[in-house]
């Protein structure tokens, strides 16, 4: 069963087959767990390098089909991947420590990308919401914007309002159950990417 929830233009949600293959660089030698102040640290800082040159060089890329590649790999191996982009078979995965500006700088027109995914290592990383918002409002991205990684139903309502229109629910959870959470609240107070604050939306006596 697919774990991918997609929103149609009219806002209806359905579970659909995921036709994209995510290109994942091999794990780096020793960096997976860093310790700081006695605690295991899992968040990368904004601006921190996401993959090493070695990881990028050693990444296997499938020869055909729709591929979702990290921004760093696109930048390093553009020549090899350009034709895939031209055929509409290439999407980008942005990590939450990468910036929307970097993504924008890498493409003349973001809308040549049929899919942008933002990967959250841990669901508690709220940068995904601001990144989504920026891509939709500041950078005018209109195609599919997908939340992937540690994606749980309890954040879906926020993802949706921050501009995401597809959600790859974590493999060990039910996408079916998660559908309900997209509508946890019917009339939010503040604006989101697609709506305005309540006082501009409806008349309140």
């Amino acid at each position, binding site marked *: 069963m697919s774990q991918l929830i997609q929103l149609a233009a009219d806002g209806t949600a359905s579970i659909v087959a995921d036709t994209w293959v995510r290109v994942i660089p091999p794990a780096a030698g020793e960096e997976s767990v860093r310790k700081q102040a006695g605690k295991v640290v899992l968040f*990368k800082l904004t601006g921190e390098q996401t993959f090493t040159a070695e990881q990028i060089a050693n990444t296997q890329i499938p020869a055909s089909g729709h591929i979702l590649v990290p921004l760093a790999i696109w930048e390093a191996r553009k020549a090899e991947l350009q034709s895939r982009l031209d055929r509409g078979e290439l999407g980008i995965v942005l990590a939450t420590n990468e910036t929307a500006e970097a993504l924008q700088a890498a493409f003349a027109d973001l809308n040549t990308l049929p899919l942008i995914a933002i990967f959250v290592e841990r669901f508690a*990383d709220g940068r995904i919401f601001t990144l989504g918002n920026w891509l939709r409002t500041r950078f005018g991205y209109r195609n599919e914007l997908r939340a992937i990684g540690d994606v749980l139903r309890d954040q879906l309502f926020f993802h949706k309002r921050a501009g995401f229109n597809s959600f790859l629910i974590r493999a060990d959870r039910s996408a079916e159950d998660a559908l309900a959470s997209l509508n946890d609240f019917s009339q939010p107070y503040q604006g989101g990417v697609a709506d305005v604050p309540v006082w501009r939306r409806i008349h309140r006596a």
Partner: protein
Amino acid sequence: MYKYDPIDQQIVNERVAQYRDQTRRYLAGELSDEEFRPLRLQNGLYIQRHAPMLRIAVPYGLISSKQLRKLGDIAQKYDRGYGHFSTRQNLQLNWPKLEDTPEILAELATVEMHAIQTSGNCIRNITTDQFAGIAPDEIIDPRAIAEIMRQWSTFHPEFALLPRKFKIAVSGTEKDRAIVQAHDIGLEFYKDAHGHMAIKVWVGGGLGRTPILGTVIREHLEWQHVLSYCEAVIRVYNIHGRRDNAYKARIKILVKALGIETFKQQVEEEWSHLKDGPLTITQNELDRVAKYFEPMPYKTLPAHNASFDAAVAANPAFAAWVKRCVQPHRVPGYRAVTLSLKPHGKAPGDITSEQMHVVADLADAYSFGELRSSHEQNLILADVELSDLFAVWEKARAAGLATPNIGLLTDIICCPGGDFCSLANAKSIPIAEAIQMQFDNLDYLHEIGDLELNISGCMNACGHHHVGHIGILGVDKDGSEWYQVTVGGKQGNDASIGTVIGPSFSAEEMPGVVQRLIEVYVRERHEEERFIDTVRRLGVAPFKAHVYAEKETAS
């Protein structure tokens, strides 16, 4: 006060349903501890030392008699018959069962209350001055804006999982009583040269492990832009704030690391995309919300009342209470009354269910059915007629709520500490109680005069010890509890962070240490000089010398 319309009620009801399901999934093992943690925290639920702790929101400190009765009933039914007012003007229950929390939230929703965002890494309850709307020195009543900000921050889609908690305070008076400089964002309202409502914006203040006073990021912001500007600030923080180390994750660290100029530049760049957009508050919306905060139906009363004057003259105990617990009011013939939740020998800020009922009755009989909670952890009847003060005093006194110590040494701000809080390194309530008992002589207390003593059980500084004239911080040394003393902290427009005077003390030593600090003050003070001013004039050296000299002699 603000009254829910169908939209507000629906949001709160939907939250109850959402949280009920989250709790069900957690108890059924479908959510891990780590996954449930931010969810329960954003509903005010901590897992504490003895039991969960539930923090119920009292938005900007306003609460109705009906709501307070409900809180009393909830404390009776689901807890041990008392609650604790916190320095964020909220009410905490110390012993609820996790399984009961959905039901508690459902009961709260029936009186337009909730526990939304009272904890967690999101925008917390917005606080303000407990005298908002009635203070004689008020320039602008900040409550309507505070309510608009409450709504904007509730389930904000972008700011649900920030690097750390985020606290906003608003002040509309000349004399700051909201400690705007100790907040992530402090909003100081004023009237500009054209008579328009404007805001001075402070950013990057906060106490805790690294106490820093805020910096002005913008001298003049038109009120219409308050949401878009705050959104710009918090966006920059959401992206660039540190997440790799919880101790360095607050916005104050980012502001310090970048420098205010660079930070401001980033905020202004972000704001340029948001300014004049849909977040701009319309006059209509401000008017709609402000309607709920219009002045109460005051009578036209003379400024003086003969029976009140006579009672003050005839009854020294009443006079002492009036002096400390009755505050001025902008409307002639009215006063604000602070009900002390600091009786000597009891935990500061605690209130029993019975007392909540008494206070609710007092509010109904004498103060338009409304109350305020203060960050000093007391309750306020904001609109009492002069001629009713004596009756209010008698009833409050019978309920143990009229200790005449507001603003005095024993009006201690104190976190729950190691008795309740799992974060604490040391107990704080017994220290407060011991100090209150040491200074139980009311005449002596009045003689010492205005003095703020703040106690925190750990460096998270919930007891705001850094800004107390005397601050006490519980520290852990080799597994035992010790107390570090700071002197010279202050809240208000000329806020300052206190200076540590030296090595820490044992719990038993603390009343004596405070006693010796007071001795220096009494010896050195000029006439009419407050403790804090003596400290500022002399520095901490003489205080330190006396405290530690005594210690050496003793040992």
